[in-house]
Structure formats: C-alpha cells, structure tokens
C-alpha cells in the first residue's frame, strides 16, 4: 500500500518523466496526462506504470472514471490486439463485444483470442479498492460509508486521512462516525509527532475496539513509547482487548465444533436408520451421500442462472435420487441378507465400489465445481475477531432440521410406527399384518434419501468427486456406534460431542493427532460400553 502511494507521489511530482516513460510519447506530455493516455498505459506489462495510470484515471474526475476502475476489477477492460487499443469488453458467444471506454459506443465483435483482459495484480486491486473506498466516503448509503471506513482503518496514507477528516466533519451516522474516530485515532497514534495528550485521548477512544489494527498500534505504542502514562494506558487497553478476544476465541472453537458435529450428524443420521433400525451395515452409505452431492451439481447445470435458489430444488432431488438407488440396493441385494449383518457389510461394500466407478465413468474422475449461492457465502461479522461463516451456520440449522423431521416421521407417521414395529420384532409385526418387505424397502429408502440430503450440504463444503463418500463412511459408523445403535438421540449427542471434542483437541495436538485420539477414545469406550452411549434393547441390538 505505502509503496504504491510512494510511486504515485513520485510520479505526480515528475509527470513529464512519467509521460516520457509512457509508451505513447505525445507532445502534450507537459500537461497532466489525459484519461486516454492513462488507458494507453494500461497496455504496459509493468504494474508500476499501470498503477500510475489507475491513479490518473481516479483523479481525472472523468464521468466514466468509476466505471472504468470497476471494469478493470471485473476483467471487463480488454486489450484489443488487432487495433492495439484498450476497450470495454463483454464476453459474447465465444468472443468479445467491444465498446469504447470513453464514449461507450460499440467497436464491434472480435474473437476470443484477439483480445485479452488487462491484467492487474493484488497491489493494483487493493489500490483501486482503496480509491473506491475514499470515493465511497461520500456515498449516501451509510452502510457503504461504514464499509469504506472499515477498509481504510489503519491506512497511513495522508490523502486518505485527509479524506476521513473531511468526512468526520459532516458525518451524521454515529456508527460511521465511531469507525472514523477509530481510524483517525490510530492515525494519531501512528503519527510520530503527535503530542502525548492527543495520544492518551486516542488510546482512550480506541480502547473498546477489537479491530486488529487497534491492537497492533497499541502494542507498538506499549513497546515504543517512553512516556510511562502512555505505556500504562496502552497496556491496560491491550489487556482488556486480549481478555475479550480470548472469550470470543472459545466461542469460535465451540462454533467450529458444532459445525463439524453437524456435518457428522448429517453423514451419520441416515446410517442410524439403516444400521440402527434395520441392522444393515450399509458400506455404500458414503456413496449415497456422494450421489446427493452430484445431484446438486447436476441441478446447478440444469439451472445455470439459478445458483441462488437451485439448492432448494437440489434437496428434494437429492433425496429422491439417493432414496431410489437405496431402494434398488435393498430390493436387489440386502433383502437376501437380513439377519446376516456381516454379509450386508460385504455386499454393500461391493455396491459402493460399483457406484464409485460408475460416477467416474459418467462424470469423469475430475472433481466437479458446485457454486455457493451468495446468501451462503461470506460470514456473519459479529465483531472484528468473531464471525460465523454463513455456510456453516446454515448447515448446522439444516442438520438439526433434518434430525427433527426424521424424528417426527418416525414418531408420528404410519410408516414410522411400522418401522419401529418391524425393528422391535419382525415376526410379530408380520403377524400383525405389516408388510415388512415394503417397510424394509421404504426404511432403507428413507435412510438413503437422508444420505442424499447430507450430500447436498457437503457439496457446499468439500470436493464433489468420486471419493467423497469414502471420506465420511468410517466417521459415520463411529458416530452411530458411539451414540448407541438405533438411538437417534444418541447419534445427535455423539455427533456434536465428537465434533466439539475434536475442535478443542485440534489446536493442542494438531489435526491428525486429534482425529487419532478421538478414534482411540471411541475404541476404548466401546470396550467399556459395547452398546454405545445410549444402549437400545431390541432386535437390532440382538442381531449384531
């Protein structure tokens, strides 16, 4: 950042030289360079020249300046090689539709390779964003203003500080005003020749803020200053900040744990049905999850424009797809194997291999990209040190919703009743006229369908690829067994328990050791309570 502005200032100081440097050397070099010159400079490969050009465009006050900068960010500003000119480019049927950057009139169509977007790098991107932020300080929308200030907090650039000062004078929105205060106080603390009172006041002003920039500047002051008063003030403020930060970090860990737990829950809950209720060890469970994930992908392909809402279609779709596959598996394989859980384990493992390879052939072994809808990306910023990522947040709620739905299905619906009856005692159930054949198929379908739904959620977090399922199968079994087979509440407790435990161990022991420790713990636990946390008396338990 600083270095950019340095360059810029140098350049402003010696326009002539810069002009001379610029590839198009026109006689009007003495005057401040026009926007068109700046645009021409963008053809250069040298990012310093581009940086200067951007500064020029920003300061030119040209009515399209803002639009041009935005276009630059969005790779909408292209270098038309044929005519060696910079133009606004729209990607249109395999080529570029060009328009004149200054006038906006069309320059016709060129093919894809004839024009290349003007390349900018992080430095320039940041530069543009800051310029935009400065501009946004006078934006009517207070939200935008606040974001702008947030962005500029910690910046030492005099022009920025100046802009902030001006804004502070006429700012009426308190939130924005506070943000500006913080920014300016930091500036004061950074400023080597500000006086002690001003600094103490500044420290007092920022003491409540959790902004990292604040913390850093305070740390610097605490170590660098020679005024005892200031040091004490700074240290006191730091302590307060650290205390609060620590609290938020614990909250963070718990959230991470819950989120991991919700993933485990989603992955395991379907298994809790097929394994717990039916006593079937479904090794293909992971692949049913995978199918759900691929369904999400396919749905997105069908509605290329509908990223925002296509998920809502994907959920039922995934449920149906996995449920159908599940029913097919049940009808073709598992029904021959009831009462022989170990055999179901082997057969379904074979099924899982087949499903994987099938997916490899249909979708290729490459991972598929699932677009995250905007409402699921980003984070809920509670304060500068504590934020909850939306996708995780939604998935936690989603997992709980699925859990409760399933619970009600099993409690309230006729199917649920029959399922429980069959799971208690197959023979009696049949004697009472329950068609256990049908019930088995439906139960298995239900479990599989839920696996599919889990796939939709996982597609938002991880790879959509043929190996997706394998990654979760063992964990799922651990959760079910640990929680107690055939006990949904057990599964819930186990999932969140293991998730949170894992997240608390991870910082101490590292990701791998954490996982190993959890596994070993489960192994020992099963030794002690072979039927898991919440043992279930009943057929499923007896069978195994």
């Amino acid at each position, binding site marked *: 950042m600083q270095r950019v502005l340095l360059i810029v200032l140098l350049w402003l100081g010696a326009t002539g030289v810069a002009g001379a440097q610029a590839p198009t050397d026109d006689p009007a070099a003495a005057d401040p360079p026009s926007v068109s010159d700046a645009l021409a400079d963008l053809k250069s490969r040298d990012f310093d020249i581009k940086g200067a050009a951007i500064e020029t465009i920003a300061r030119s006050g040209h009515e399209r300046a803002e639009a041009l900068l935005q276009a630059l960010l969005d790779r909408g500003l292209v270098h038309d090689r044929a005519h060696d000119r910079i133009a606004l480019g729209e990607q249109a049927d395999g080529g570029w539709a060009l328009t004149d950057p200054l006038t906006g009139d069309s320059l016709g169509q060129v093919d894809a390779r004839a024009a290349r977007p003007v390349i900018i790098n992080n430095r320039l991107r940041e530069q543009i964003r800051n310029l935009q932020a400065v501009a946004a300080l006078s934006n009517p929308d207070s939200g935008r203003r606040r974001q702008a200030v947030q962005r500029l907090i910690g910046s030492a650039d005099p022009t920025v500080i100046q802009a902030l000062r001006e804004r502070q004078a006429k700012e009426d929105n308190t939130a924005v005003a506070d943000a500006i205060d913080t920014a300016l106080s930091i500036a004061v603390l950074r400023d080597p020749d500000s006086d002690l009172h001003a600094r103490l006041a500044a420290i007092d002003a920022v003491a409540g803020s959790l902004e990292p920039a604040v913390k850093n500047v305070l740390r610097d002051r605490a170590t660098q200053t020679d005024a005892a008063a200031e040091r004490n003030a700074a240290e006191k403020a730091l302590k307060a900040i650290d205390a609060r930060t620590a609290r938020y970090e614990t909250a963070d860990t718990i959230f991470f744990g819950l989120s991991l737990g919700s993933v485990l829950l989603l992955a395991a809950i379907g298994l809790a049905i097929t394994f717990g209720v039916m006593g079937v060890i479904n090794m293909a469970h992971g692949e049913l999850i995978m199918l759900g994930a691929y369904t999400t992908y396919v749905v997105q392909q069908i509605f290329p424009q509908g990223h925002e809402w296509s998920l809502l279609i994907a959920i039922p779709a995934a449920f149906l797809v996995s449920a159908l596959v599940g029913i097919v598996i049940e009808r073709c394989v598992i029904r021959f194997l009831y009462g022989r859980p170990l055999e179901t384990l082997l057969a379904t493992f074979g099924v899982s291999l087949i499903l994987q390879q099938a997916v490899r052939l249909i979708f290729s072994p490459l991972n598929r990209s699932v677009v995250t809808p905007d409402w699921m990306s980003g984070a809920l910023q509670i304060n500068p040190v504590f934020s909850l990522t939306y996708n995780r947040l939604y998935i936690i709620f989603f997992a709980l919703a699925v859990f409760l739905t399933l619970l009600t299905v099993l*409690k309230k619906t006729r199917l649920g009743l029959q399922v429980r009856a069959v799971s208690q005692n197959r023979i009696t159930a049949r004697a009472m006229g329950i068609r256990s054949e049908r019930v088995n198929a439906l139960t298995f379908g239900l479990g599989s369908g839920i696996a599919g739904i889990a796939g939709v959620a996982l597609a938002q977090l991880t790879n959509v690829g043929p190996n997706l399922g394998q990654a979760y199968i063992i964990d799922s079994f651990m959760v079910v067994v640990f929680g107690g087979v055939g006990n*949904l*509440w057990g599964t819930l407790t186990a999932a969140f328990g293991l998730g949170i435990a894992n997240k608390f161990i991870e910082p101490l022991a590292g990701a791998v050791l954490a996982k190993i420790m959890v596994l070993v713990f489960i192994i*020992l636990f099963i030794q002690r309570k072979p039927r898991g*946390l919440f*043992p279930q008396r009943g057929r499923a338990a007896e069978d195994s």
Partner: protein
Amino acid sequence: MSRPDSFAANLRETFRRDQVFGPLRPGTRPVSPGHLDTGGKHILYMEDVTVSFDGFKALNDLTLYIEPGELRCIIGPNGAGKSTMMDVITGKTRPDTGVCYFGQTLDLTAMSETDIATAGIGRKFQKPTVFPEHTALENLELAMAGPKGTWHALLKPVTGEQRDWMASTLDTVGLLGERDRLAGALSHGQKQWLEIAMVLMQKPELLLVDEPIAGMTRQEVERTAELLQGLAGEHSVMVVEHDMEFIRSIANTVTVLHQGSVLAEGSMQQVQNDPKVIEVYLGESSS
C-alpha cells in the same frame, strides 16, 4: 427409537456406571467344584432377590432354598419370573438387591457364568441350545467336566474312559445311535435329550432344567421323568415346567412363583388346594 424422557434416564444410566473400563479390573477367580462347601442345610440360598427391567419387577423379594439332593419343581404362569430366577442363579442376570449363595461360600451374584458353571451348576435352556455344527458325541466332549483351558484343549486328546463315559451318557438319553450325526440335524426332542446329556457331562451339583419335555412324545416324557428322578439324590435338581401332569408325576416339593415372588410352597396336594394358587391358576391349569 428412544423417547426424549428416556434420554435423560439414559444419561443418568451412563454416568451411574462406577467402573470405568470394567475389563481392566481383575474378575472373580474361577472356583473349582472342590471348593463348594455344602456343609449347610441348603445348597442354594436365594434371599430377597429383586430384579427389575425399566421399572418392571421380574423378581420381587424372592426367597428360595434348595436342599442337597432334592428335586424341586417350580411352576407359575408366564412372566412369573421363572426364567429370570434361573438367569440370576447362573449369573446371566445380576440382581438389584438380595443375596444368592451356592453352598456356604460361593456368592453367585459376584461370579461369571463360567465360574458358576465350573462351580457345579448346570443349566438346560428352555429353547434347546446345542452346537449345531458338531456331532452329538462332540457336543458331549465339549460339555465334559474337566479342565477347560485353551492349552489343555489343544494338547490333551480325549482318553479312553472319557470316551466310554460319553458313550454311556449318550446311551442313557438314548442317542447312542445318533452319536455321529450333526446336532443341528437332530429332531427337537433329540436336541432336548442331547442338551440334558451335555448338562450331565458337567457333573453338576445343581441342575437347572427349564421346560425339559417341550416337544416330546409320551414315551420320551416318561423317560425324562425317570431320568430326572434318578438324578435327584446325588444331584440337586430344579425343574421349571408348565405341564401339571409331568410335575405331579415327579414332584415331591413344588414352589409356585407369581409376579416374581413365591406364592406357595409344599407338596403337590397342598399347593393345588391353596386358594391363592387356584385363584392365580383359574383357567391356567388347563394349559
């Protein structure tokens, strides 16, 4: 599926368990039959034994004594707690309260099934359980009293007299002809016999016989009766049975269980004339 309210119960039950990693604690030492001290009046003492499953009391302050060499019949309607009682004696189920002693010294509530079996209690299950993949003879071999350690089993072949003993036992239950058939292939009645034979091979002090004549023909029933009476004297025998005829034919003392405790006890006559029993058994006796 569990109910939310049982969730809490489960939780309590989880943390009530005192022994963490139970397996790591040394178990009770095995007791060889020799240590059984039958000096007292009784060979089996059950006092105030209570067992409950989720609130339902299968045994309710049950008190019962068996004398050495006696043949005791236990009757009672379904759910009276007959099988649960046997489970307690054989260590399959642990009582919530009460004491259960075998002889003067052996506290059955603290012993594993294995120890109890080695100590001299043999059990024939209601549903005949034999080893289907083994021949009748092999079943007896496995049941035979004697060291049951792995190395012994690996290195010590069966001796001649052991062979004769098995043969004679098979003969007593009339299965000598079936000696080399797979137990799984025997008829229901034959399985019952085989299992009795296996229990005999254990040389038990106390036999628990659970519904021995289910699925037997008339003749078989009679022979069972003889057999059991023959056993009484050197062994103590406890027979659980529904069939009144059968009971009458063998019993001298009868205990009636009802709702987990002793309703009446005495000779068949006394018991049958006991009003409480009649009340409980109205319509039952036919079955």
